[in-house]
């Protein structure tokens, strides 16, 4: 690299790297990769439509000072969801806000509390899936990682309860960064549901959250994964989900992305061994000045694997969204079935979407499809609703909600589905009179 290291890089390296003796190898590799990745500009392909200008205006490479998040519990509690719930505020574990329930076959510990045996497993897997080169924030996460959550499910164990991990950010009074890390390892034929939720306090945010989750799904194992975001409009989030799929394993992913000033999420799924299935469903609903950027990479490296990826976005006001979905079929991935669909609805003339579905195929016996659409509300449908007495405003809301309804309905975990419905409806209007009919359904029918 000829160009001088950016301020951001310099500050980050001196602030976060080399602070402890754990995971030294990973830290060193991460920081090397981070140094080599230039600070993104418009010319950086993976960041073409997402500006990191905010990061150049203030020094975000400062430690967080306060951790109190007790007052925001209402922002993440899900009714009738019986779970182990671990709460992190600005990256720090909050024992007093968390509940731990022991289940046989489940190991859930912080890296810092891990036994020698658990630590050996962490060291074996940590950083193996979260590739440094994909994203500079992931590289930085690798460079600094000391602590995080380790979830290990033993062979043949089917967890009866979901695991709920909450990440909260709060106001600091000055720019700061928080990091978190999650490593999920499912041994052979294990089954688990992991819900990761990202919320913030209701105050103006100044914490940048850099969070990376890695999952290693063993042979025949099944992971149901939720990533639910609803942060304050001023928050910055750089996240990554990196998944390795073993033979005949299954990964079901549901993402709901709301809120945030700039939110970037990279998702990588590797079909490594053959026979694995990935189902990925996501919705993003930016409004006002929000910006959301999803980069998904599905790597089909082995035969007989399937991918079904569906993302839907609704952009309101001046918001912007970026969807970049790539499915890469390697030469050995014969008999792959892969589909990627991305549909977008623009609710205003000023809203923007940049969508780029990509298929790269190097095997000949595969069935793949991909497509993206961008549309506005269907005037004919709107007229139909109005011609039955429904107001123009409510018609807009019904049609917008209808655009994502199918994905919402497909969420298998009922308490989440029930909780998400009003949350999503609220995106379109805070007036209960205008959302009552779209909310009426689950109870009525």
């Amino acid at each position, binding site marked *: 690299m000829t160009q001088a290291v950016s301020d951001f890089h310099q500050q980050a390296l001196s602030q976060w790297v080399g602070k402890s003796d754990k995971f030294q190898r990973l830290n060193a590799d991460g920081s090397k990769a981070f140094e080599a990745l230039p600070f993104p500009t418009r010319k950086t392909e993976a960041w073409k439509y997402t500006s990191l200008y905010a990061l150049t205006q203030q020094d975000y490479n400062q430690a967080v000072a306060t951790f109190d998040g007790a007052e925001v519990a209402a922002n993440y509690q899900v009714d009738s969801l019986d779970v182990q719930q671990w709460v992190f505020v600005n990256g720090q574990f909050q024992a007093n806000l968390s509940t731990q329930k022991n289940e046989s076959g489940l190991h859930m510990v912080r890296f810092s509390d891990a036994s020698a045996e658990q630590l050996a497993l962490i060291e074996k897997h940590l950083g193996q899936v979260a590739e440094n080169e994909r994203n500079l924030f992931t590289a930085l996460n690798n460079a600094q990682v000391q602590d995080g959550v380790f979830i290990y499910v033993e062979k043949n164990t089917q967890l009866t309860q979901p695991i709920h991990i909450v990440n909260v950010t709060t106001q600091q009074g000055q720019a700061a960064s928080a990091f978190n890390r999650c490593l999920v390892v499912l041994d052979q034929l294990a089954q688990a549901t992991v819900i990761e939720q990202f919320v913030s306090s209701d105050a103006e945010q100044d914490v940048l959250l850099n969070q990376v989750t890695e999952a290693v799904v063993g042979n025949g194992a099944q992971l149901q994964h939720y990533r639910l975001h609803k942060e304050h409009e001023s928050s910055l989030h750089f996240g990554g989900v990196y998944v390795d799929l073993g033979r005949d394993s299954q990964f079901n992913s549901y993402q709901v992305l709301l809120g945030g000033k700039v939110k970037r999420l990279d998702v990588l799924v590797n079909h490594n061994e053959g026979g694995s299935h990935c189902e990925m469903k996501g919705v993003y609903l930016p409004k006002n000045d929000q910006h959301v950027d999803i980069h998904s990479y599905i790597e089909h490296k082995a035969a007989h694997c399937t991918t079904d990826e569906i993302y839907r976005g609704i952009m309101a006001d001046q918001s912007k969204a970026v969807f970049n979905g790539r499915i890469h079929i390697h030469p050995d991935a014969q008999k792959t079935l892969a589909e990627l669909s991305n549909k977008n609805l623009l609710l205003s003339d000023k809203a923007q979407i940049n969508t780029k579905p990509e298929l790269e195929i190097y095997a000949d016996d595969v069935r793949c499809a991909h497509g993206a659409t961008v549309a506005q509300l*269907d005037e004919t449908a709107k007229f139909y609703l109005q011609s039955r007495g429904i107001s123009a405003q409510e018609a807009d809301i019904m049609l917008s909600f209808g655009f994502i309804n199918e994905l919402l309905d497909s969420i298998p975990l009922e308490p989440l589905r029930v909780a998400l419905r009003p949350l999503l409806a609220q995106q379109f209007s805070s007036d209960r009179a205008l959302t009552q009919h779209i909310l009426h*359904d689950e109870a009525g029918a």
Partner: protein
Amino acid sequence: MLSIKNLHAKVEEKDILKGLNIEIKPGEIHAIMGPNGAGKSTLGNVLSGREGYEVTDGEVIFDGKNILDMDTEERAREGLFLAFQYPVEIPGVSNLEFLKASVDAVRAHRGQDPLDSVSFLKLAREKCKAVNLDQNFLKRGVNEGFSGGEKKRNEIMQMMLLEPKLCILDETDSGLDIDALQVVAEGVNSQRDPNRSFIVVTHYQRLLDYIVPDYVHVLAGGKIVKSGGKELALELEEKGYGWIENGAA
């Protein structure tokens, strides 16, 4: 009930309705027939206040009110109902929530309380049965994947739920087999009322055996070129429209 005088309307800079007159009294059924492209559906869209359909002259008085300045939803709440020639599919919006929203809106306009979900569901199921639609249709997306005939029956079901004053049925008989035609006709006839009027747009005299009109009009070239009793329909079926249009020209 409805008085249309000298109605002129254009769509995308094209004049479609060119001086249309019609008078409909409460309780009457008027059939409108006419060649393709004559402006029959345009009339329905204009009366419903669809965007893009611009009235350039004339007046429309519905139940004593000038409706041309009203929004589409206001006209519907006032009791105007259009059964579409091609009902649109709306995936993701369930038929039930759509129907509830409509009925609530119309009831609120009439000063009635909203029905609770249980009573509404009961009512909706009843109406489904009346038009021979399975209850599952309530849970499906609005018209989503419905067959042509099912869509038309869904229109009639909505009409029954909303209890409008004026019903415009735009080719509700097209694409129906004879059984479905009977179901639809029975649905319409069950709604006949001294205070409710119908405009029935059709290409086929057959429908008028089931729904017997008081008047039959021929719409051609954007206006009513001939009116008569129900026997006019038979004559039209036999001779086509050529003789009238030629006569009118």
